[in-house]
């Protein structure tokens, strides 16, 4: 069997074929005609079949009864879950639902419906939202929407690319490919970051940033555009509000020579794309940085120009879809604020239920305050910035239900486990970061008694008076079209036998409200180094990687060599501190201290100490609630 489907890893949304024999996955083949991937896959895509085949799968419903965990029939398990949750709701205790970027639109939509219509609560979110939320919110502050205005294929045609660098070659290889092709064709690549990454090495200009203070460089670019008179007068007149205030806010911004060069390339390009990875540091600042980058696109006329624009880089495949489906506490499906009367009415008519009026909690607070929790296809401790504190919070939840295809730390402590299909065994759609809604198809048989996730969620919805029943995933999509106007027309079959990815409909954002990033404080003499939590998504703990024999090797080896984590620094930095390789460093901040072995990394800026997201728990005492912290370093 050769089954066309969509890659489950990052949000680029490449197309691939899953190969199966006798109901079991055996491999992956690329597709030359897929509009996103056109024959190319990254290492993850090439290994997409592995986790579902080799992984530790959930095969039977499990419930905790009589003080121990037992297998149960589906009817028993669903009755048990419904009963326990209803008891909690009747007792007036808070309950909530966590959706997932690893789940389909159909699954996320039903998760949202289960929370809002079934449980009558706005306590619904997804964990990864805590990481990508500020970036999207920043865009929304400026554009009135969070949707990107550029596509992956636009990158290749651009004359100038501005890349707010995480490590694009690793996080989004498909996007990095387009950057390579553009650079090969003579485009100017400008990278912003504190690491000389692969993309930075290929850039025409690398603008070095200070972690947590990326806004300084963005403001410098904005100021350069305005100082040199490079703004696009038409765009400003038609689309931008707040330019005078922006000028005032930027009056003290330092305009460097490099910023002027980059500003000229950007402003003079017919087509330019700005790629934005989530920046390090405080959430509030990350949001302002994103807004400032969007403003840069707006005043140079690239925001609304066809072939130009912004592309926020989402790490997980269906993060966009989860948001579109209303799996965030403050937005209903279709990204309408929960207080929006018209959107509420539409859902009330559709669901035949009133909607909850009280506001909901975002993922981290939700975990810490609900008594009953349904977690769909996710492992909060490995995704949330709060790390293992999430595990402690989950352990305190009175009744925890997990719907997942894989055994995860969260499923292991759940009071009820409902085994569902992985992406390779179910039908549905996912929405990539550009806004393409693409199909996933079942290539393999369901393991044990597992059922498709949409079916289990639909059953739960029905048990909480959700009303309608669904016969298939396309049935759910039909309802999504009514709930999410921008998804209208999705369910119609593609006109040819093509891949049939459809776009989320364009949104008329109205005028942009431009703004600057603003500048934060700097390290002090007392704490001269900057400790940074790398915000790049920790794929190593995602079951799609950790259960793949080929893809898990790097992260497993790293964890074996450094069971207690490590901190990366450049050699000059280590030399200056007098810490020999193989020794440990003590990191001291105003909040507390931690001791970690050091690992040298040549491409890191001097003075910056980087800890991968995977090891964030090791430095949580040093960071406090921040993502970047000024520290003093000593040999431990």
């Amino acid at each position, binding site marked *: 069997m*050769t089954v066309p489907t969509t890659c489950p890893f990052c949000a680029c949304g490449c197309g691939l*074929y899953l190969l199966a024999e006798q109901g079991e996955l055996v*491999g992956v083949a690329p597709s030359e005609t*897929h509009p996103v991937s056109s*024959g190319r896959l990254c*290492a993850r895509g090439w290994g997409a079949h592995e986790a579902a085949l080799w992984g530790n799968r959930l095969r039977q419903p499990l419930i905790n009864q009589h003080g121990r965990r037992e297998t149960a029939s589906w009817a028993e398990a669903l009755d048990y879950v419904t009963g326990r949750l209803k008891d909690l709701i009747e007792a007036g205790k808070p309950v909530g639902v966590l959706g997932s970027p690893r789940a389909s639109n159909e699954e996320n939509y039903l998760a949202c419906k289960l929370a809002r219509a079934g449980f009558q609560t706005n306590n619904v979110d997804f964990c990864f939202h805590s990481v990508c939320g500020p970036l999207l919110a920043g865009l929304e502050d400026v554009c009135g929407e969070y949707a990107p205005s550029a596509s992956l294929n636009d990158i290749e045609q651009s004359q100038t690319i501005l890349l707010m660098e995480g490590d694009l070659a690793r996080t989004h290889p498909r996007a990095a490919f387009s950057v*390579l092709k553009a650079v*090969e064709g003579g485009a100017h690549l400008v990278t912003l970051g504190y690491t000389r990454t692969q993309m930075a090495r290929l850039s025409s200009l690398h603008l070095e940033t200070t972690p947590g203070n990326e806004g300084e460089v963005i403001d410098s670019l904005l100021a350069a555009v305005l100082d040199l008179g490079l703004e696009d007068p038409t765009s400003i007149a038609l689309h931008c509000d707040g330019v005078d205030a922006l000028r005032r806010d930027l009056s003290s911004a330092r305009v460097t020579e490099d910023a002027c060069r980059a500003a000229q390339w950007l402003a003079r390009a017919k087509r330019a794309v700005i790629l934005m990875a989530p920046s390090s540091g405080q959430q509030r600042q990350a949001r302002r940085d994103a807004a400032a980058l969007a403003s840069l696109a707006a005043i140079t006329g690239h925001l609304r120009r066809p072939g130009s624009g912004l592309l926020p880089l989402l790490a997980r495949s269906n993060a966009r879809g989860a948001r579109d489906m209303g799996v965030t506490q403050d937005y209903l499906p279709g990204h309408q604020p929960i207080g929006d009367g018209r959107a509420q009415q539409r859902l009330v008519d559709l669901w035949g239920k009133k909607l909850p009026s009280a506001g909901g909690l975002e993922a981290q607070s939700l975990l810490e305050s609900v008594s009953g929790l349904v977690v769909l296809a996710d492992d909060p401790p490995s995704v949330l910035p709060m790390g293992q504190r999430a595990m402690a919070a989950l352990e305190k939840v009175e009744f925890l239900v997990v719907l997942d295809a894989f055994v995860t730390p969260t499923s292991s402590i759940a009071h009820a486990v409902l085994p569902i299909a992985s992406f390779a065994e179910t039908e549905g759609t996912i929405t990539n970061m550009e806004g393409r809604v693409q199909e996933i198809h079942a290539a393999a048989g369901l393991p044990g008694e597992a059922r498709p996730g949409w079916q289990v969620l639909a059953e739960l919805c029905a048990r909480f008076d959700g009303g309608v029943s669904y016969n298939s995933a396309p049935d759910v999509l039909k309802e999504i079209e009514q709930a999410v106007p921008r998804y209208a027309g999705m369910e119609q079959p593609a006109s040819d036998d093509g891949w049939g990815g459809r776009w989320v409909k364009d949104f008329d954002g109205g005028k942009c409200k431009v703004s600057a990033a603003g500048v934060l404080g700097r390290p002090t003499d007392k704490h001269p180094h900057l400790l940074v939590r790398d915000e790049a998504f920790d794929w190593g703990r995602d079951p799609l990687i950790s259960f793949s024999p*080929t893809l898990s090797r790097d992260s497993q*080896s790293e964890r074996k060599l450094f069971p207690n984590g490590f901190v990366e620094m450049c050699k000059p930095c280590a030399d200056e501190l007098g810490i020999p390789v193989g020794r440990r460093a003590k990191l001291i901040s105003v909040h507390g201290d931690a001791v970690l072995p050091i690992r040298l990394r040549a491409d890191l800026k001097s003075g910056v100490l980087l800890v991968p997201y995977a090891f964030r728990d090791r430095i949580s005492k040093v960071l406090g609630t921040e993502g970047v912290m000024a520290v003093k370093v000593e040999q431990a």
Partner: protein
Amino acid sequence: MQPINLTIQKREATKWLEKLLEASEVIAPRRGRGGDIVFSTTTSPGEVLWDFGNPLHPPKQFILPQTDPIVKIQRNGQRHEVEPIYDDSPRVLFNARSCDVKGIAFLTRMHEMEPADASYLRRANRLTVISLACTTPCPLGFCVCTDSGPFLNDSYDVQLTDLGENYLVEVGSEKGKAAVSDVPELFRPATEGEVSQRKRLEIEAKNHFGQETCHFASAMRRVSTGRVPEALWERMSDWCLECGGCNLVCPTCYCFSVKDLGRDGAWIRCRMWDSCQYAAFTLEASGHNPRPQRKERMKRRFFHKASAQYYQRDGMVGCVGCGRCIKVCLGTTSMPAVVGAIRKGKWHE
């Protein structure tokens, strides 16, 4: 075996395919999504494509599967029983292209080397390869540079050539003979005119190759004697995104890793395609990695592909000029691009 030249009328080819389908699994190029062409198991002759660009995913998966069960391990009391798994199903690979047939021949030579790989060879022995000669070269192919196309002079069981009304059927092996012997009434001996038409078509095809060339000889001299500057490897390696696609679609790559799959109380030891471009390919259990940097892995790949040392051992460069790595490369480091850079000592200048 002395080749036998036969002819079959085009409209009779369906009958021949029907007969082949009765006897075994037939793998042929078929339509996938959105105009893609894929090699897959055929259920009726109508699905088989006769005019097609070579599928991006090579047919090597049918002789060396991406996930290949090789041994079953079972506990028996205090002992473990180890039982080899063989796949003896007969298969016909139909309408394969010349480059892929050369690729399969190369793989078979590699797996015949001592210690011979019984798992591979059992499958290979049951595979009949029926190729369709390329009268029109594919746009990115460069098989003329690797002596693996557009027509074959060896390595096939049966080679078909489109002569307009008929196909010339060159039978090159006992397996090929068996493939035509069930329905002898469909075939007649080829005329001298038909055989010389085939020769003409081959020359014409060779004159119509596209832009891609690959000057292995001069690259080989530099690679084999270590005269590729380190700085060049380093520069090139920044243009690779480590997807491994070049290895996975390469008809001549056969490197693998091994992992046990638990099934019904037993373990199935599987061989899985691997890529020498992945950082963990040479990662040792101690955590030591002899090739931690991408440039070192890239250097290794091209040493295996294009050094005199391997050429002497394998009888050819590790490339059949199919051009797949050009299409599949997530960077810009395909075989012709890197060979060109090695030859010129320059990259993107």
